[in-house]
């Protein structure tokens, strides 16, 4: 077994340049199956850009991103999703004009083509799965509610649910607890702890208590470069990290 096959995700030499400004510069990291990787770093470090590059939202200038040995950088966004990579955005992105049920239904991994969507039928399997996910994300009583009427935290949960229903092997979450109340935050931590068990997860988060809780390994980004990588204890003790991010 070569070292590459051990990893679910291999990021090597990843670089993106916006008019000469390198938002991400020669980044290397490797994610193993079932690990929870947290990316931290000061504002503007390029954390969100890294996720954008992996899921195809931004095109890389150079480098390679391999998921299960398939090069993601050449794929279209929807093909990357089909390969098994799910992405949650920083601001809750749900379909406000549709009900919670319909939001989850659109994410149900069937009927992706035009004619597949036309002939899609809402059968018992679909309903059962949606019910199941809705219970996981604490929204089982709100299935008929329009997503527009949900609270900020509930929208975040709904978007997480929309990803869960696709059962991705790699889940990428961009600040999942940002803007939540304390109670919501606690519930979300519990939810995330439950869903990261059977898959690999990359999380961007600022809340250090939360990071300590969930992280297998931590990457610290600074100005598009990897500043430090390792366990939370290792990173916290790293003088460079203390200098630019955690503070003295």
């Amino acid at each position, binding site marked *: 077994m070569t070292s590459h096959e051990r990893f679910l995700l291999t990021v090597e030499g990843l670089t993106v340049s916006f008019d000469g400004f390198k938002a991400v510069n020669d980044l290397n990291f490797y994610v193993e199956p079932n690990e929870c990787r947290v990316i931290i770093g000061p504002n503007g470090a390029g954390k969100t850009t890294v996720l954008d590059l992996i899921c195809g939202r931004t095109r890389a200038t150079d480098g390679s991103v391999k998921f299960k040995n398939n090069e993601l950088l050449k794929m279209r966004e*929807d093909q990357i*999703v089909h390969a098994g990579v799910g992405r949650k955005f920083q601001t809750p992105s*749900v379909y406000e004009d549709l009900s919670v049920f319909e939001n989850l*239904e*659109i994410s149900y991994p069937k009927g992706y083509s035009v004619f597949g969507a036309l002939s899609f039928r809402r059968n018992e399997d679909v309903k059962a799965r949606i019910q199941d996910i809705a219970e996981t994300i604490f929204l089982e009583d709100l299935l008929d509610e329009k997503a527009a009427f949900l609270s900020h935290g509930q929208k975040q949960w709904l978007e997480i649910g929309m990803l869960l229903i696709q059962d991705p092997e790699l889940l990428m979450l961009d600040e999942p607890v940002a803007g939540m109340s304390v109670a919501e935050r606690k519930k979300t931590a519990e939810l995330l702890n439950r869903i990261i068990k059977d898959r690999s997860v990359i999380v961007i988060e600022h809340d250090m208590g939360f990071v300590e809780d969930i992280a297998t390994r931590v990457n610290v980004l600074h100005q598009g470069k990897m500043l430090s990588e390792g366990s939370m204890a290792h990173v916290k003790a790293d003088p460079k990290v203390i200098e630019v991010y955690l503070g003295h």
Partner: protein
Amino acid sequence: MTTQKNTLFTRQEWIGFVVLAGIILLLLPAALDNFRLNLFGKYLTYAFVAIGLALCWGAGGILSLGQGVFFGLGGYCMAMFLKLEASTPENTSIQSTPGIPDFMDWNQLTELPAWWQPFYSLTFTLIAVVLVPVIFALIIGVAMFRRRVGGVYFAIITQAFAAILTILIIGQQGYTGGVNGITDLRTLKGWDIRTDEAKEILYYVNGVLLLVVLFIAHVVRKSKLGRVLIAMRDQEDRVRFSGYDVASFKIFIFCLGAAFAGIGGAMFTLQVGFMSPTLVGIVPSIEMVIFCAVGGRLSIQGAVYGALLVNWAKTSFSESFPELWLFGLGGLFIAVVMLFPNGLAGIWSEKVMPQINALWNKRPTNAQAGPSKKGAVS
């Protein structure tokens, strides 16, 4: 749990459909004389376009200011067939080249261009009425949506296409009839389309076709594809990162709208008896958007009412105040956008339906009739 039972028609939608069918097929023919009925038949041909816009724009958020292009292409296909049938060598014996359409003769053409030849066949023409607009929409759609051109840019580009096609038709007088269009259409397979009787029959054909298109639009709107369209309008990125190829959905709905518009155009030619570039350009294209907006862009049935109402108002006003009409139309559009963003359908489902429901639920015998339906527009 109302939303989870995905029936094709809710009771309310079913009633709406039946009422509309009744108005088109029973009420209007009974209430109007032949001249007015033919006029309403013409209005209903615009409703085909408005239904397509309700899907593209209302559901999918794709604003096309060039639907006149597809209406025109459908209409021109039909007109070419009818013109060829009207241009028999006997009818055109005074021309220097008998047997070709009169405008070709005036423009010193001596033989029928090759691309006119297939339009001798009615079967080919009927297929072309739908397929030509669809192919055109497919080309525009692939070029624009694959490159992620959307929003205002897409609207402007479609408007440019409307302008281009108008200029092309006017410029190529010998092949297209120029600014006059294709006129003096007489018979369809020997059946005179100019008689009162024929116009009445065509009105009914038009009405039935419109209901069929309405039904298709409803099925699309109610399928998961319809919900994906709405999702795309709200959060295009989320749809993309949920595994959908957004462009192919946009192309599909744009082509479907074009197909509807093409059928409308063909029915226009049959009922009105000519086709001209004034129905293709920017102004009619924008008017069609107004029909849809007034009816309520989220509602496919509203689109039909919008087309009827605005055109009826247009005819009435422009008969009395021809100069003022355009201002009236502009004012109407501003009023709709500012005061009733969801148009007639919005007024109906937000203001009228709650009143009716309230009255209904007050009646003691119906108190247990079940929860009042939410004001869903179809």
